[in-house]
């Protein structure tokens, strides 16, 4: 039978908690899921650049969203993930979803 749990646990079996996700962590998850994004000009915050400008396609966004869902045990609305254009929009979606779930 297939296992149906969708949530990751760390080595101690404990689940991660929501307030840990920062913008820097989100960018790191993206890098792990889909590789290093494009160089960002000095003075610009990558969180506010579009995924396209960062070199991430729709698959990169889906992979990142899936990792975040598993890590934090939340379920992001598919339409909202698809509508997110920047890492900050995704970050806000994650925080909002977690707050609603809490």
């Amino acid at each position, binding site marked *: 039978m*297939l296992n149906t749990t*969708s949530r990751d646990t760390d080595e101690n079996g404990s689940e991660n908690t929501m307030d840990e996700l920062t913008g820097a962590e989100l960018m790191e998850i993206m890098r792990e899921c889909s590789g290093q994004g494009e160089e960002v000009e000095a003075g610009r915050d990558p969180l506010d650049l579009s995924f396209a400008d960062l070199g991430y396609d729709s698959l990169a966004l889906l*992979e990142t969203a899936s990792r975040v869902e598993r890590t934090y045990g939340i379920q992001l609305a598919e339409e909202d993930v698809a509508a997110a254009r920047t890492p900050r929009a995704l970050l806000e979606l994650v925080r909002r979803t977690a707050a609603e779930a809490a």
Partner: protein
Amino acid sequence: MTSTVITGMGVLAPTGLGAAEHWRNTVAAHCRIGRISRFEPDGYPCRNAGQIEGFVPEEHLPSRLLPQTDHMTRLALTAADWAVKDAGLDTGDLPEYAMGVVTASSAGGFEFGQRELQALWSKGPAHVSVYQSFAWFYAVNSGQISIRHGLRGPSGVLVTEQAGGLDAIAQAKRHVTDGIPLMLGGGVDGSPCPWGWVAQLTSGRISSTEAPERAYLPFDADADGHVPGEGGALFVMESAQSARARGASVYGEIAGYAATFDPPPGSGRPPTLGRAVELALEQAKLSAAEVDVVFADGAGTPELDRRESAMLRDLFGPYGVPVTVPKSLTGRLGAGGAALDLATALLAMRHGTIPPTANVRPAPEHELDLVVRPRKTAVSTALVLARGHGGFNAAMVIRKPAGPEGKGGPC
């Protein structure tokens, strides 16, 4: 009919990263078969493979391609880059639809596939990568190469087990004959993972000999199977006129090719590799006597070796043509093996040297002139043979380019 020539090659094999290193190690008979290092092979009855050492994907490919590619696709993308560069092409500069790519595959990106199967069955569907939908499937290398180089011409993917390298090159040649200016073709394969390894073992053809240099001995009395390996070669192909027009130097011409299929075991009908050779020679308008060297399939199992040597005796006479199996250094590279042999054959023409079959003492019963030490001799015409599990046979004849544009001159 216009002739199709090869103007670029990208080689990635256990014997070397790049054609030059591959050729040096091949002529020096440096055997690159060794104990599997990609996973712990202790628990398995066969533990040797031909592995590529020193390939660091980050040095060759952009970061964003890495999470979405299996190991063998990274090798293929790198080989494609090298082939294009070797041909002196700028793929950013091609007319629309002017170039396509045909690759051979055998098991797709299997290591990636095993990882995702494990994620699915141990953790659940939500853990399966978005890249699984194409990282495993057989078409992945042609797709990724076409994207990386903007190749919008006809593309394809063929699977004929280990005959695939030649079949893909022949399919690419067909497109050149039909008027597509440039094609990439060939095969790069192999990602030894435990799941793929266990599946390989069930073929019954993998050697369980412990000593690496004794594990793959085609045409030797001690032959007891082969060793799987990774790597292969990709080629840039174009019409002779196109090569001339852009001043490209030419490795060689693909003069003839044919594929045949063996009847099923127990049918009582004879095998058909010999007919593939005859058809390929006929297409090349050559007689058997004009062939300077045969790159044999060299299965490394007694029965298959006997069949191949019987065919060579029939067509060329006992000891009638120099025969070599340089893949004795690398193992058999799945869909990449025959493509690597073609690269080695082109390099043999260029250097006037037949590379050796390593570690083998030819069994007298085969009556083959098996080249076991490098042999200096002019090579103008070479025959490359490949057989795939299940009955696939392919034969390709290549010819040294005439005239000054060839990479065939002394170097």
